[in-house]
C-alpha cells in the first residue's frame, strides 16, 4: 500500500511544526502555566497542571523534586533560567514557515500529480512539459474541444473554444506538410505556448484564436480565471482525463470511491482552492488582477444545472468526445428553459441529496438522479433547477438591459456559509465588542512593515537564504496578510485591498477563506477573553481545528487541512496572537 507523496509531505511538515513549537516555550508560557498551577492549588486538576509544567521544564533540562505542592517553589526554580522571550521565538517562527515552504504543494504540483496518475502511460508523454502533456490530451481525447459550441440565431454553429487552427498551423510549419490529427499530438511542443506572449486579450478568451492554449496553460500553472471559465475548464479536464465521480450507486455493478480519479477530491478539494503558493509565481504576481483571487472553496455547486450535467456525463460509459458533446448540447438546450428560476427549498443540502440519494430528512437509499435516463434527467433539471442564463439588469435610471451569463455562474450564492459568516461577525460584535473594521491586525508572527528593514539582519543570520527567496517569502506573507485583514474604511481600492476575504457583500461572494478568517478573529477573541489555558502550538492547532471544523463542514467546505498552507499559517498566526 502507498501513501500519496503530497499528503505525506504535508503531514510530516505539520508534525515537524508540532514538534518544534510543542517544545518552544517562552517566558510568557511559563508565567501562564505557573498562574494555572497557583489557581489549581487544592483542586483536583493540580497534578494534571503540574505534570504539564514539568514537561515544559524538562525541555530546559530542569528536573524539580517530586511532589512539591506549591507554585512558589516552581516559580523560584524558574526565575534564573534562561528562557527565550517572545521576540526570539518570533524569529524562529518566521524561519520555521520559510523552511517548510518547499514542502507545500503548489497548484502546479497538484496538477502534475493528477496528470501523472490519469495519463495513459502508453501515450509516452511523461517526459514532456506539463502543459504540453495536457494539450496533447485535449487534442487526442477531446478533439481540441471542438464539441463545445452553440447554434447562432441564423442556425449556424459557432465554436466556443478556439485554437485548433493555430495549433495545426504550428505543427504544419514544423513538419512541412498539413498534419494528420495524430501528427499534431506527436509533434506539438512547448514552443506553441510562445504564441500567448503578447497576444491581445480577445485572442486569449475561450473563443479567441488562442483559447485552448490559454485554457491549458492556466490549468497547468494553476491560474484561476474569472467568470466561471476556470470551473468550466476543470470539467473539460475531468472529461478528457476520464475522471470519476463517486455517489455509491450500484446501477451498473459495485462502485468504489477512487481517490486518484475522483473529480471532487482531486480537482475541487486539492487543486481549485485558495493556495497561497501561487504567489511565489512571478507571472501570477504581475498579472493578479486578471485572475480569481479566491475560489469559493465549496467545490461542486450542486445547485447549478450545468455542473449537474457535467457530473451526469462524467459518470457515463462514453468516449470523452461524446461526453463533451452531449453535455454541451444538454446545457444549451436547458438554457433559459424551464421553471423561470424557481429553486427547491433547503439549498445545497437538498440538491446534494438528490445526487447522492439522500432525502432532506436524512433518509438514505433514495434513488439518485444520476441514474436517470437522459430524457428523464433533462426533464428533472428543467423542473427543479434555475436555468436562466439571461438576466435582467436595471440601472439607477431605471433602464433595463439583459445580460447573458455563463451557465456555470447560475446559483453561486452560498446561503448557509453566508449565514454562518454573519453569525460569526455578530458574535464578535455582540459578545466581544469587536467590529469588522477592528479585524485588521492580520498576520501576527511577522511585522510586515518592518520586514524590508529587517531583511539585511535576517539574511545575515541565515546565509543560506538568498535575497530573492526572502523577497518572495515577504510577498507571500503580504498576500496572506491582505487576505485576512478587513478592508480599512476610507482607503482607496487598491488591488491588494480588494483581496480581503472579509469583504463579503452577499452570499454570492462567500468563500471558505472568508468564513475561516472570520472564525480566526473570533477564536482569537475567545482566547483573549477566556485567558485560555492553551499554551503550545500542538494544543492550539487541535483546539482551533475542533472549533472551526463543525462550521466549515456545515457550510460544505473542506475541514482544516495540514496540506493547505493558508490553514497552517492562520493557526500559526493565532499562536503568535496568543503569545503577544
Amino acid at each position: 500500500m502507498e501513501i500519496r507523496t503530497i499528503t505525506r509531505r504535508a503531514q510530516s511538515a505539520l508534525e515537524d511544526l508540532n514538534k518544534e513549537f510543542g517544545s518552544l516555550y517562552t517566558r510568557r508560557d511559563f508565567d501562564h502555566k505557573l498562574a494555572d498551577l497557583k489557581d489549581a492549588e487544592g483542586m483536583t486538576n493540580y497534578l494534571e497542571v503540574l505534570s504539564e509544567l514539568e514537561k515544559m521544564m524538562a525541555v530546559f533540562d530542569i528536573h524539580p523534586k517530586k511532589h512539591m505542592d506549591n507554585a512558589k517553589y516552581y516559580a523560584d526554580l524558574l526565575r534564573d533560567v534562561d528562557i527565550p522571550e517572545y521576540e526570539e521565538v518570533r524569529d524562529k517562527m518566521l524561519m520555521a514557515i520559510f523552511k517548510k515552504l518547499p514542502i507545500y504543494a503548489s497548484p502546479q504540483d497538484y496538477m502534475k500529480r493528477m496528470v501523472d496518475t490519469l495519463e495513459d502511460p502508453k501515450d509516452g508523454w511523461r517526459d514532456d512539459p506539463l502543459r504540453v502533456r495536457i494539450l496533447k490530451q485535449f487534442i487526442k481525447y477531446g478533439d481540441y474541444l471542438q464539441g463545445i459550441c452553440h447554434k447562432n440565431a441564423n442556425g449556424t454553429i459557432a465554436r466556443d473554444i478556439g485554437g485548433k487552427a493555430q495549433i495545426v498551423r504550428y505543427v504544419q510549419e514544423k513538419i512541412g506538410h498539413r498534419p494528420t490529427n495524430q501528427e499534431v499530438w506527436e509533434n506539438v511542443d512547448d514552443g506553441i505556448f510562445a504564441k500567448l506572449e503578447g497576444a491581445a486579450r480577445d485572442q486569449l478568451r475561450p473563443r479567441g484564436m488562442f483559447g485552448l492554449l490559454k485554457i491549458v496553460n492556466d490549468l497547468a500553472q494553476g491560474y484561476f480565471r474569472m467568470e466561471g471559465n476556470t470551473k468550466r475548464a476543470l470539467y473539460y479536464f475531468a472529461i478528457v482525463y476520464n475522471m470519476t465521480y463517486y455517489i455509491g450507486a450500484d446501477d451498473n455493478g459495485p462502485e468504489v470511491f477512487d481517490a486518484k480519479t475522483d473529480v471532487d477530491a482531486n480537482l475541487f478539494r486539492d487543486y481549485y482552492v485558495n493556495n497561497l503558493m501561487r504567489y511565489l509565481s512571478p507571472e501570477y504576481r504581475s498579472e493578479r488582477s486578471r485572475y480569481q483571487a479566491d475560489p469559493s472553496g465549496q467545490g461542486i455547486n450542486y445547485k447549478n444545472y450545468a455542473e449537474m450535467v457535467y457530473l451526469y456525463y462524467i459518470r457515463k460509459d462514453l468516449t470523452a468526445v461524446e461526453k463533451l458533446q452531449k453535455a454541451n448540447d444538454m446545457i444549451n438546450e436547458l438554457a433559459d428553459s424551464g421553471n423561470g428560476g424557481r429553486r427547491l427549498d433547503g439549498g445545497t443540502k437538498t440538491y446534494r441529496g438528490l445526487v447522492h440519494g439522500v432525502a432532506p430528512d436524512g433518509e438514505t437509499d433514495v434513488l439518485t438522479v444520476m441514474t436517470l435516463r437522459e430524457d428523464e434527467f433533462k426533464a428533472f433539471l428543467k423542473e427543479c433547477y434555475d436555468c436562466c442564463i439571461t438576466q435582467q439588469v436595471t440601472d439607477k435610471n431605471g433602464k433595463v438591459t439583459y445580460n447573458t451569463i455563463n451557465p456555470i455562474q447560475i446559483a453561486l450564492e452560498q446561503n448557509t456559509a453566508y449565514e454562518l459568516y454573519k453569525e460569526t461577525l455578530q458574535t464578535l460584535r455582540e459578545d466581544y465588542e469587536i467590529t469588522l473594521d477592528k479585524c485588521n491586525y492580520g498576520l501576527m508572527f511577522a511585522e510586515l512593515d518592518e520586514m524590508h528593514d529587517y531583511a539585511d539582519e535576517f539574511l545575515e543570520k541565515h546565509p543560506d537564504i538568498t535575497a530573492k527567496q526572502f523577497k518572495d517569502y515577504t510577498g507571500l506573507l503580504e498576500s496572506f496578510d491582505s487576505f485576512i485583514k478587513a478592508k480599512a474604511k476610507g482607503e482607496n481600492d487598491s488591488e491588494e485591498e480588494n483581496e480581503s476575504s472579509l469583504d463579503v457583500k452577499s452570499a454570492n461572494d462567500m468563500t471558505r477563506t472568508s468564513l475561516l478568517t472570520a472564525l480566526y478573529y473570533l477564536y482569537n477573541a475567545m482566547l483573549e477573553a477566556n485567558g485560555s489555558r492553551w499554551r503550545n502550538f500542538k494544543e492550539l492547532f487541535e483546539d482551533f481545528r475542533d472549533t472551526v471544523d463543525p462550521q466549515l463542514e456545515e457550510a460544505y467546505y473542506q475541514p482544516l487541512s495540514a496540506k493547505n498552507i493558508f490553514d497552517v499559517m492562520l493557526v500559526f498566526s493565532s499562536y503568535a496572537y496568543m503569545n503577544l
Partner: protein
Amino acid sequence: MTYTFSTTGSHHLERKEGSQDVVSHQENARYAVITLADGVSSCTNGREGAEVASREMTRLLFHKAEHFMDFPEETVAELSLAHIRWELQQKADAMHIDVKELSSTLCSALYDRKTRKLLLVNLGDGMIITGSKSGCAVPAMPSDSRNGCYVTTTPEAEKKMRVYKMDAGTAETIYLCSDGAWHNLFERSRMRQEVQTMIKMKRNKQLGDYLQKQDPFDDCTFITMELKKKSERNYA
C-alpha cells in the same frame, strides 16, 4: 473452502523485493476466518509486520470467535488492534527496529456457518467483496487514502478501523482484496463487467489469471472463501 491468488507487483520485482501481501486462514466445522495484511512499502520490514498482523488476527478471531461475534464493534477494534500491536512490539524488540517499520493494513472476515453471520474488519485500503448469483457487493470499502491510510501501528487506529456485522444473506463467496488487486478489478470507479461475471460464477482461478494478465504494478492478492451453511450435525 478457501482460494488464494497472489502475485508480486512489478514495482517490487524491479527492486528485487518480495510481495508485501500476506494471507492466512483457519477453520473448523462452525467458524472460518480469512485475513489479508498488506505491508507498507516504505517500511523496511513491512512484509514481516504483515505476517504478524495476518497470523495473529486470524488466530484471535478463530479462537475467540464466539466472543468476537457478540462484542460491540468498538470492542472488536480495540481488542484486536491491542493484541496485534503487542505482538508487533515483541517482534520489533527482537529485531531491534522501530515498531513503525512493521506497519501494514489489515482486512479480515469471520464467518459463522451456523448462524450465517459475518464479522468484517477493515483497516486501510483493502477491500471486501461478496459474490452471489445475482451480483457483487462491496460491504467494506477501502479507506480514502488521500490523507494517508491508518495502518496497524498508527496511534488511535482503532478509531479508524471499520468493523461490520452482517448476515451473509444470499452471498455465496467473500473476497478480501489488497489495493493492488481491487484497482485491477475496477475500471476507474466501476467494477469491470467480466470481473463481476467471474465472481458471480465463482471462477477464482480465472480471476487470478485475469489479474496476472494485467501485469500489476503493485502486489496483487486476494483470498476468498465460500459461505456455505453447514448442517447441524457438522458442528454439534
